[in-house]
């Protein structure tokens, strides 16, 4: 009876439904205190001269002016950050797709293979693995020793301003496992009838790939690209550990710049301005990706 009464008073929601807020409470507090508030405050700080222990000094656009016109590091760091993502994300996703397609057949022991290929991806952001990379690609490291033995000229992987960034990107690309597993699951979900129909129509391998496989897995492909993009634009650990931003700032991504300004010199206002530029950059890439998705991402329930 009571249920009926409340149902009349509140046409949409029952008393039970309002209990949801108890369950959501941790997230609501977390959202307000640790996400929304810091998000707004970093915007506010970015217009201030602010160090730990000092007062907020409103200085208008000075931080941004300084970044855009005076700071010699900034434009370079912005370029490096974008390049880092542009090298890494396509490399990672294409490799993941190729390997996933290769593994998507009736090969015995495929689960073991998938497991072994995933191992490098366990160490995403690991300092230990970044150090391993640094050692292997040193001027007298194992790869250059190999090249010498093969009679090839040595490459200064981490000492050359043109080579350092790609070498770090290689570490990220090496960890393509999670995209691979996702894409493999997506490939397994493509209905077999579609391929059978294509066989009847005499579609070749390429035609099948372009007209069946790609559209069918496009939502997962989109998700993988978006995820990787957001992640790689924020990368910090690999360049910081392997080269420390060098040589000649050629791997000095915005993350390193932010860390040094904020937690090296404690210029919190300036660092906040950098973080907002990074945010706008990520937002721009995200919106761009969503914009292109109309043209190539196909959702099954679309009519």
């Amino acid at each position, binding site marked *: 009876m009571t249920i009926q009464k409340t149902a009349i008073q509140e046409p949409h*929601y029952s008393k*039970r*439904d309002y*209990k*949801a807020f108890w*369950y*959501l409470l*941790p*997230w609501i507090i*977390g959202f307000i*205190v*640790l*996400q929304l*508030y*810091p*998000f707004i*405050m*970093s915007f506010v700080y970015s217009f201030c001269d602010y160090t730990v222990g000092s007062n907020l000094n409103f200085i208008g656009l000075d931080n941004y002016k300084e970044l855009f016109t005076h700071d010699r590091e900034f434009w370079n760091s912005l370029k490096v950050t974008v390049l880092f993502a542009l090298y890494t994300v396509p490399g990672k996703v294409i490799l993941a797709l190729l390997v996933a397609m*290769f593994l998507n057949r009736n*090969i015995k022991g495929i689960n073991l*293979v*998938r*497991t072994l*290929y*995933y*191992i*490098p991806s*366990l*160490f995403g*952001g*690991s*300092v*230990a693995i970044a*150090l*391993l*990379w640094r*050692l292997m690609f*040193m001027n007298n490291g194992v790869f250059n*020793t190999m090249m010498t*033995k093969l009679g090839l000229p040595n490459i200064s992987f981490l000492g050359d301003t043109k080579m350092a960034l790609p070498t770090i990107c290689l570490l990220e690309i*090496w960890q393509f496992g999670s995209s691979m*597993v996702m894409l*493999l*699951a*997506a490939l397994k979900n493509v209905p077999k009838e579609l391929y059978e129909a294509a066989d009847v129509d005499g579609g070749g391998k390429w035609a099948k790939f372009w007209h069946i496989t790609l559209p069918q897995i496009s*939502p997962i492909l989109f998700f*993988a690209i978006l995820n990787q993009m957001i992640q790689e*634009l924020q990368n*910090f*650990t690999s360049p910081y550990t392997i080269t420390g931003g060098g040589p000649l700032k050629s791997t000095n991504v915005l993350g390193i710049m932010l*860390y040094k300004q*904020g*937690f090296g010199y404690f210029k*919190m206002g300036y660092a*906040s301005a950098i*973080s*907002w530029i*990074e*945010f706008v950059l*990520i937002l721009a890439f995200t919106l761009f990706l969503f914009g292109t998705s109309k043209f190539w991402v196909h959702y099954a329930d679309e009519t």
Partner: protein
Amino acid sequence: MIKERVMIIKKENNGIMKDKDVKDKARVIDYVLIIIIGAVLLYPIIWMFFASFKDNSEIFGSVSLLPTTWHPENYINAWKGSAGYTYSKFFINTLILVLPTTLLTLASSTLVAYGFVRFNFPYKKLMFTLLLAMMMLPSTVVIIPRYMLYNQFHWVDTYMPFYAPATLCCNSFFPYMLIQFLRGVPRDLDESAYIDGCSTFQTLTKILLPLMKPALFSAGLFQFLWTYNDYFNSLIFINSVKKYPISLAVRLSLDSESVVQWGKIMAVAFIAVVPLMILFFACQKYFVEGIATSGMKN
């Protein structure tokens, strides 16, 4: 006799055999390719393992994978750690940091996922959109005010900067993963519990929680892995060596030496990654299922 028989069978199956031959050949090529890709992918890890037994002259001068003279003492030196603390201490620190963070994440994510999936409430759609949008919010844009906040609470140089966001469900990935899972659990189950007089909380703990075990396990593994590997947050929030987790300790081992013994550093690095490999091989099913489903938007 046998030869003749084989010949007859071969003749009979000539057509089929040819087909099979082609298939067998393709199969061999497949396996060769699988092994080559695998060797390339795993080479760095295998190299690291053997390098951890080498001395500098061999690490830099030789291409052979196996050391000519083994230096197991690298591990003894590695374990000694630096600044007066051994790796036993660093591992204990890591567990004190990672385990509560993981468990708190699971607890809060379960509650939030339950709230979103099994209730209808005002502004549900808006709140769900916000939850998803937070997945795209870069952590760098909130890190500075969070640091100032934690500083005011005197939480810097404690593990609270890790526990607090876990308790307050700040990584949307986990509630999202559990929401996807719970959507697949039929509602009849908790409705019958409701008729039997269970409270909403009892419905969660008695009916749904046992069913959620695999999803929780996957989510827990990911949070464990990410927190274990995380370097940026540790670097910012933990200052005293006494509280260093593994990630910072590894870096310290390198920085505290004037002449770097890379064999020892590789031993340190191997010690740091080996727990993850053990965990992965023990629970690989959950890893793979977790990733495969997290990308699926129904």
